[in-house]
């Protein structure tokens, strides 16, 4: 049997996946190791998220909902830190709660880290309510009384013993909800809390979820949308505190270029081999 000799076009039409993996690995790792930072253009959706938090008064109370786990951490953790920095900078008080049980430690770590940076005091400037099962049920009933589901905080301390919680009972006392989402809970916030209680909402979602969340922004059901690592990088730019979002953006930028180059090479190979 005579083996057909592979020419350049055959090769470009079927590049070994190992080569693709190695090149993607290099373009992702190198920018992070070198600490490269890319300048990002601010999109209207992130700008409106920023403006919403910027419009809050000091002592306003916001809820940050941690609805993600370590798998989505590279995209959503920079968002959490950037939003917390913005909120604490403005002396806005923060209540954190969690609907993904595995999100509790990373949320707590982010909250404690940023609170320490700004010298904030637990119970006076921020409170961590922890995890409760029941997502939609919890969201709806918090509109009547937060204590129906969160009688105590994550450390089993009664909510009323925290000075900042004494006058916070339901959504009437909450200026904004920020949902950081890797699943469907962002939709639940909009459908069960936004529509029923007229609550202002800003969502931060993973890159793949941005497409399905955009309609809520256009219809005005949410006031801002931070999409993926790019959104996090934009927010870091807006608050002038560069973090992992901007570093990760350089890696993402080069990875996208590499993928597009592979697509172009593949198509050239496809057309040249088809001609023959």
């Amino acid at each position, binding site marked *: 049997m005579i083996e057909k000799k592979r020419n350049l076009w055959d090769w470009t039409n079927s590049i070994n996946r190992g080569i693709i993996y190695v090149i993607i690995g290099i373009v992702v790792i190198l920018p992070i190791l070198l600490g490269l930072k890319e300048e990002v253009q601010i999109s209207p959706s992130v700008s409106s998220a920023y403006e919403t938090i910027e419009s809050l008064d000091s002592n306003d109370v916001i809820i940050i909902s941690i609805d993600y786990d370590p798998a989505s951490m590279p995209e959503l953790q920079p968002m959490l830190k950037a939003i917390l920095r913005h909120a604490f900078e403005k002396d806005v008080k923060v209540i954190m709660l969690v609907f993904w049980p595995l999100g509790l430690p990373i949320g707590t770590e982010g909250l404690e880290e940023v609170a320490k940076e700004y010298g904030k005091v637990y119970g006076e400037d921020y409170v961590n309510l922890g995890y409760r099962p029941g997502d939609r049920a919890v969201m709806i009933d918090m509109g009547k009384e937060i204590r129906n589901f969160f009688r105590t905080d994550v450390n089993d301390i009664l909510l009323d013993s925290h000075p900042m919680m004494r006058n916070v009972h339901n959504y009437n006392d909450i200026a904004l909800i920020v949902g950081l989402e890797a699943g469907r809970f962002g939709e639940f916030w909009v459908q069960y809390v936004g529509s029923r209680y007229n609550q202002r909402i800003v969502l931060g979602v993973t890159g793949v979820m941005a497409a399905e969340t955009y309609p809520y922004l256009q219809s005005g059901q949410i006031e801002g949308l931070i999409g993926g690592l790019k959104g996090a990088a934009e927010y870091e730019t807006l608050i002038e505190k560069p973090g992992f979002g901007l570093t990760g*953006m350089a890696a993402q930028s080069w990875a996208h270029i590499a*993928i597009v180059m592979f697509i172009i090479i593949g198509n050239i190979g496809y057309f040249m081999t088809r001609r023959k």
Partner: protein
Amino acid sequence: MKKRVPLVITFVTGFIVIISFFIPHRPFGPLETDTLIWYSIILGFTLLIGVDSLVRLHVRQMRRRKAGWWYSIVFFAGFFYCLVIGIMSVIRTPNPFQPGTIFFYGYKTILIPLQSTMFALLAFFVASASYRAFRARTLEATLLLVAAVIVMIGRVPAGYKLWTRLPGIANWIFNVLQMGAMRGIMIGVALGAVAMSLRLILGIERTYLS
């Protein structure tokens, strides 16, 4: 009796939740609160059913020595680690996930790297799949290919450096073309959910009883 009781429970709870949306006053408001708390408690117990099912599955696999049965040993190692260390941490502190606890240490050194690694692998698969799938074989495939390339490049800083108007075009694809299709899908799904909910509440749909 076996069928009537669940049907009555479904009808009554569904009715209470719908009515209390429009009339959030006594007696419907407090009734809704109770219903939602029950839902949360029942949801907590469903975790136990999940654990039971998972343990049974792995015990069965180990007994029958099915292919890859030794992965079940890894499962049991992780399961008992979480159970024992979790209970120990709960006894010591109200929040076992508190930084500094042994449970948190396991979470940080085992779970975070494992989950992050699994998710990071997607980058390699997406790159390889994009190279193979995005071929201009037909007109539709070509349109998909062009849109994908514009969005991929337009959404990163390199796109702006390449051509300043590229991010605008990518946003237009996102905000107009994509959004129209997505909104249609979402409205369709919502109408389907309303219809299915009504069928469940009125007892027309009974497959959940079997």
